[in-house]
Each structure stands twice: as C-alpha cells, then as structure tokens.
C-alpha cells in the first residue's frame, strides 16, 4: 500500500486537543517512527459524534504541491497571532521540527527540498479514504461531513464543466452541507441549477435577494446524529459581489450580516440544538471577530483565507478551526456532546500525504472518468520552469511574476496587474509546465486580459483600495485576498497605516523613475470584475509568452518594500 515514503523518519503530529487545553503544543504521537496510514488516521473513540471539515479545495481532484505563505501579515489586534505567523516562527510556535513532514505541510520553509522528499498532498480519492474510514469507525449515523466552499472552481476541468466534475465527485463523498464563494462565479442560473440538484443543502445565511432583501438561500440545518442535535449555519463569502463580478449574480446580495447569524443561533438553540456550528467562508480574522460579537456558537469551521492551523483558536467559548486549502488537509473533530452542550472535543488537522494515504478506488475511478475527455489537453507541455512556481503570500509569488511578465510582453504594457488570489497550486523547480498547471493558477469565468490606460493617481488609488481590503484594522472590512501583484512597477507599503497613506514610492522599475500622478500609463491585467472587459483569456497570454520564452527562470522579487 505504501511507497518509498514509508521510510520517512518522522511521523506527522497528531494534535490531540481537549476543549480545555487549547494552548498546548501540537503533540507528536511518537518520534522517529515510520509514517503510515494508521498514524495519520487512527483515532481513539473519544466522544459521541465526529465532525469532518474540508474547505477551499479549489477543484483539485488530484494530489498537488501547495506552498503555504512566507508572508502573511496581521494588523491591529491580531498582529503576530495565528494565522499571521509564518515560516520559522510558525515552527517555533507549534514546536515543529524543521524538515519534518509537518514543517513541509504547514509552512514555506525549505519547501522546494521537502517537496521532493514528502511528495504531493491532497487528492479527493485520499480524502474519500479518510471519510470512509471515519464513517466505518464511528458508524455512518455519528459523522457529519461539511464542505466550506470554493470547491467547484480552480482547475481546467472545473472551468470547462462549470463545476460539474467537482459536483459529481463531491456527491460521492456525501457531504451533509456546503456553503460557497467562487461557486457563484458560474452565474445565477448555473448556481441555481446545480444547487437544486444537490443531494444535500447549500447553506448561506447571508445570501439575500438583492431587490427584496429577503433570504435567497436556506440558512441552517439541524442534524440529528450520534444521539445529539447539531445545528449547522452556513455563511457564504460576504464580499462575493465586490471581490468577484456582481454582474454574474445580479439578483443576490451578501454581506456579513452578523445579526442574521445571531438570529439563527437563537433559533437553533430554541429548536433544541445541543451544538451550534458555523460553516463559514468569512475568512479567519472575520470569524475571530464574529466569535467575540455573536454569542452561542460552539464551533466555527473557517475558510476562505486558506489558513492551516494545527490547533484550534479559542475565542470565549467558541472554537475556531482552520483546515487549509486545496485538499491538503481534512479536519476531524471528535465531540463529546451532553444535553444542550458541547462538553469536550479532540481536534486533529489531518495532513493528506498522497503517498501515505491509499486512494479510495471508487473515487479514483470517478476522478478518472470526469477527467478522461480532457486528459490529452491537460498533459500538454507548454514550457518549463527552472525554479519553484508558487502564488501564496501577501505581496508576490513566482506564478504571478510569470503572469505579469507575460502581460507586459504580450500586451505591450508598461505596468501589469495580477489579482492577489489565494488559490493556485505550486510547481517544483525543473518541472514541465502543463496546460493543467497553468489553469490551476488562472481557471475562471472572467479571464479577459485587458489593456487600458490608467493615470498614476488611479494606480495609486487601486493599490490603496486593495491594500485596505487586506490590511483594514477592522476585520469586518477585510475581503480576504492578498495584495494585487504588480509587474513593471515597484512600491512601498505600510500595512499599519490607514487607507490613503499606506502606499509610497511608486516607481517604474525599468527606469527608476517615480510614477507621475498626472501621467497615463499603459496597464495590462486580468480578472477585472467589470462586465465589459475585453481581451484574450489570460491563459492564452501566458501560453503565447511561453511559446516565445519556453524556459521560465523565477527571480527574487524585491519590487515591494514593506515598511512599518
């Protein structure tokens, strides 16, 4: 069953956290032993109900490489708190050995070297094995599986099928409920059609009819499992019509609407809920703030900001879970539920090492089936990379450096803009770049690469606006993306300041000249939220660039200077 990686000298930490001892370190099951499926999945029979959580899979059916961020700055009250701890600081905080499997899974430290040692992570067939095993151990009726959304978008096949590939595979996994964000970028009709065909509820307490201001989605659902009543409230990404095109979903209005969440918590308690769970796509910092403002939520399954934390974060009586992204992790919570209360819990962030966890054969077959029509196209080699391609990080990543280089060259622009998305998988140095790899970094329904004129002042306003979405000291005003990536221009940024005064020293990199506020610049970018955006899809731009420059050499990017 196991491959060469059976010989790994360390085991992955299995966090065993009780509700009262959340400050403990991520404990190792045993040092210096071989990593096996049992080490990763073996569980005690603690409690009476098991909650499983996956989120932000971004249509990654197959195992992937995904480098966690090296830079993830927190501002205001959460400066320096998880998830705003990265690299060596993260290893120290959670007492993780550098070079260990958990260091590879959870941080950017030595990512390139460790990727070759520990291999790809994720794969929906591996996740299916974990889910199947939990259901077998606990009994089908004692397990709840929840999907936090951003499931249907992020790959070539998902984009080609408007999410049908993911829906077919997820239906095999039998989640009990989901919520969403990028799902909405397929447009109102597709979302309605897909939602109505789902054999489980798509929950969104904060999705309202834009005209009538009345609920457009079911808000919550009660599950009677393991002899208990568990209420699950769904919370879609509050800023979907702002961070993504509103014209695709003109009938729906979102927002945090914490008063709605509070109302549903009360209704759930009145209906006899022993435990209240918020299945959320708010983003971690928003949920941390919400937990302090809305009483009565036992567990928030966070999503959107792609954080993976080996321990829960506790706010008052509320436990926050961060389950990572791209199928790299699955969260398992074993709950001890008494009458009307959550008495205790054990938490494990299960790292999905694809060479250790055996694929579920039924799911593997389904994945092969949905990919079959596209396999030849997916495998097509369009270039090579000499260095690691990755995206995540607050300010830049080598994938977006490549995209910006392509935009500057192919669209003949002075400045390139690439949105600070947090999805997009990584590609080790020396790899071929395939069509599948490229689309993992840019598959979407509004891919037009525009070319337009923008004044220096407008560029400054855009940078200030996006920086405020990321660094507003009040988390309720954060949209959860990273900073827009910029090609051809450098700038300074002080995340601790307010909107209008964070950005400085905007400079054309080629000449070293400062940006002239009054001058117009030729700017190329992609993924504009405006309906009338024109241009070739971004993947054609990058593919054409790679045709002319088949070997990409990532370089150190020093164009953004962080000040504070």
């Amino acid at each position, binding site marked *: 069953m196991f491959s060469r990686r059976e010989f790994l000298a360390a085991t992955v930490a299995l966090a065993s956290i009780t509700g009262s001892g959340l400050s403990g370190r991520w404990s190792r099951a045993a040092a210096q032993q071989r990593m096996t499926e049992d080490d990763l999945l073996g569980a005690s029979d603690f409690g009476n109900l098991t909650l499983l959580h996956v989120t932000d899979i971004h249509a990654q059916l197959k195992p992937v490489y995904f480098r966690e961020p090296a830079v993830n700055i927190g501002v205001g009250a959460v400066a320096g708190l998880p998830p705003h701890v990265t690299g060596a600081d993260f290893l120290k905080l959670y007492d993780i050995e550098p070079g260990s499997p958990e260091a590879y899974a959870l941080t950017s430290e030595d990512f390139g070297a460790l990727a070759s040692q520990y291999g790809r992570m994720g794969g929906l067939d591996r996740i299916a094995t974990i889910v199947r095993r939990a259901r077998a151990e606990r009994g089908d009726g004692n397990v709840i599986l929840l999907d936090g959304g951003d499931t249907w978008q992020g790959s070539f096949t998902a984009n080609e099928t408007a999410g049908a590939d993911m829906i077919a595979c997820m239906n095999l996994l039998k989640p009990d409920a989901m919520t969403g964000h990028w799902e909405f970028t397929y447009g109102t009709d597709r979302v309605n059609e897909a939602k109505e065909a789902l054999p489980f509820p798509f929950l969104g307490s904060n999705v309202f009819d834009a005209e009538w201001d009345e609920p457009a989605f079911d808000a919550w659902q009660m599950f009677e499992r393991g002899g208990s009543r568990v209420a699950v409230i769904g919370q879609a990404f509050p800023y979907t019509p702002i961070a993504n095109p509103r014209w695709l979903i003109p009938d729906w209005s979102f927002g945090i609407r914490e008063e709605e969440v509070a109302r549903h918590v009360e209704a759930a308690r009145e209906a006899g809920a022993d435990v209240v769970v918020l299945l959320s796509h708010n983003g971690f910092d928003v949920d941390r703030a919400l937990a302090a403002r809305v009483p009565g939520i036992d567990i928030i399954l966070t999503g959107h900001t792609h954080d993976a934390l080996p321990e829960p974060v506790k706010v008052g009586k509320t436990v926050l879970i961060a389950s990572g992204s791209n199928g790299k992790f699955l969260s398992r919570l074993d709950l001890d539920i008494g009458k009307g209360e959550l008495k205790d819990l054990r938490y494990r962030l299960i790292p999905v090492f694809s060479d250790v966890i055996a694929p579920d054969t039924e799911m593997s077959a389904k994945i092969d089936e949905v990919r079959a029509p596209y396999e030849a196209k997916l495998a097509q080699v369009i270039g090579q990379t000499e260095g690691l391609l990755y995206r995540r990080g607050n300010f830049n990543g080598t994938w977006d450096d490549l995209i910006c280089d392509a935009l500057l060259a192919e669209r003949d622009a002075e400045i390139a803009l690439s949105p600070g998305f947090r999805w997009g998988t990584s590609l080790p140095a020396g790899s071929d770049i395939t069509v599948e790899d490229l689309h993992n970094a840019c598959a979407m329904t509004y891919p037009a690469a525009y070319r337009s004129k923008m004044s220096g002042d407008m560029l400054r306003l855009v940078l200030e606006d996006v920086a405020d979405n990321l660094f507003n000291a009040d988390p309720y005003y954060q949209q959860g993306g990273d900073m827009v990536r910029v090609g051809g221009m450098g700038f300074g940024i002080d995340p601790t300041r307010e909107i209008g005064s964070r950005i400085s020293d905007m400079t054309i990199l080629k000449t070293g000249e400062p940006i002239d506020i009054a001058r117009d610049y030729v700017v190329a970018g992609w993924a504009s939220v*405006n309906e009338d955006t024109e241009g070739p899809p971004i993947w054609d731009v990058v593919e054409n660039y790679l045709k002319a420059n088949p070997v990409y050499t990532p370089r150190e990017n020093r164009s953004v200077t962080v000040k504070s």
Partner: protein
Amino acid sequence: MTRITRRTLLSGTASLAAIAGLGLLARPAWASTEAAQEAVDAFTGGKKPETGKITLTAPEIAENGNSVPVTVEVDSPMTEGDYVASVTILADGNPNPEVATFHFTPMSGAAAATTRIRLAKTQNVMAIAKMSDGSVYSDQKEVKVTIGGCGG
C-alpha cells in the same frame, strides 16, 4: 430545494443597475463633518444624542454605492405616552448630508424603516431618533465604497 421567493413569484422584475467601472465619478464639494453636525443639531434642537434604543443596519462595504440598503429600527412601546416621533438618516460624506426623515405616530405600531441611499465614497451613515418626550438617540456605521476592479 427550490425556495419560493417574491422574486420567483414575480418573474421578470427589473434588474438592478450595472456596477460602475474603474473610473471615479466627478466629485462635487463634499459635505464636511461640520455640515453633518449642523444637520444633527437642526434635527435634535442642539440636544446631544444618547446611544441605545436605535439600531442602524447597513453593509460594512457597499456592493453598489448607488444603492446602499439601510435599515433603522427603534425600540419603543409606540403608545400615546411613549413613541418615536421621527427618525432621520444622515450621510456625512455626501454633498448634502440629509438623506431622509421618517415620521411616526403611535398608530405606526413599530418604528422601523428601510430605504436605499446613494453613497459615492466611504463615509459614516448616521441615524437619529427623536422620541415623544423629546429625548434623542443615535447610531452610526461606516460604509466603505470601494473602487473595485482588483479585489480578490
């Protein structure tokens, strides 16, 4: 799992206006916070509003600055002896800070109102309630209006 909503019942209702592009609107002279304060004073008769009783609900970030839904609710028994006389809504960054004033009587039953307002930039929206005994209460919320285009 089809929901019946007023939208599905009334098919073909007008769709909302398309979002503004990257370009900013030309800016007239904005109301100053002083102008907003003057409007507050004119409504309250110079009385300093207390907090509590009134709740203003508005989005943290506007989805469309041209049409921002705001709701005010005032906690009151609405009897002859104790009711909400009027509620005014102000936006301190608009050219004219006075947005709307709602008048109530005990016959209103409840003091609540919802409307949509236009906000062309990030600003504070304020709601003030004047009670039948002359006391005044206020609540406010910052509503951010983004220029869009690069959010992610």
